[in-house]
């Protein structure tokens, strides 16, 4: 019988635009995942808060097999604050490098929308 290495599960890092605290984002995402798919699924998805880039950009991590369902939950959270998924990546390094560019674009967009309001 061939010897195989025990491989660690694959992860995906999600960059989210959310106008509140990271803890609230994580609890809202967990809550919605439980609401939509159940407790077992939410536990298996192993959602974790990884980073915060600037005031509104958050990075959360999940298992790659459950990415579709986590994206659905993220899309459907919130009545007061809703979350916008900006990017998904397999490595944190590439996500961070892309997030720096996106951060500048978003800040420019938000400044123009706030001046219009």
């Amino acid at each position: 019988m061939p010897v195989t290495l025990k491989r660690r599960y694959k992860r995906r890092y999600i960059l989210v635009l959310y106008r509140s605290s990271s803890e609230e984002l994580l609890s809202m995402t967990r809550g919605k995942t439980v609401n939509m798919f159940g407790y077992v699924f939410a536990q298996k998805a192993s959602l974790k808060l990884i980073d915060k880039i600037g005031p509104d950009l958050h990075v959360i991590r999940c298992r790659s097999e459950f990415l579709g369902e986590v994206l659905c939950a993220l899309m459907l959270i919130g009545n007061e604050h809703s979350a916008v998924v900006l990017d998904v990546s397999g490595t944190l390094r590439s996500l961070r490098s892309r997030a720096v560019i996106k951060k500048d674009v978003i800040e420019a967009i938000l400044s123009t929308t706030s001046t219009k309001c």
Partner: protein
Amino acid sequence: MKVIHLLRKKPLASTTFPYLVTSDNYHDLASKNVDLLEITEIDQQFYEMLKQAPSKKLGIEITVSNLRATGGQKLAKNVALIKSIHSFTEKYGNQLVLTSGASSVFEMVSGRCFDALLKLCDIKPETYWISLNNWLEHKINMRCYACDA
């Protein structure tokens, strides 16, 4: 960049910009002027009316902002509804249109999330986007537009 305007009423004269006429009242199914019909609540009568609708290639719009307002059982019902409307529209030559319904930057939905929602509803994202593109091209190209002076 080409922007498609959403209008509540069909303009009396030809326009310089592409547009779609929208409505949120499903009794407008009988009207030939409506291109896109937004639905929130649905019953058996809707399906009957859609079968008898005079204009084929009608867009049936479901917004994510409406889905966001629901939770639990109602949300599950809405997901089943998207699936049933998709198969129904395919059968009768209409088009399902999923939109964000966003009124601000913070309510926008990315393409990847739409794909995830479509997969959740057992709809192949590739076939959905191709049919939506064909439907939009058909709707925009069937009209005469005034030339820019």
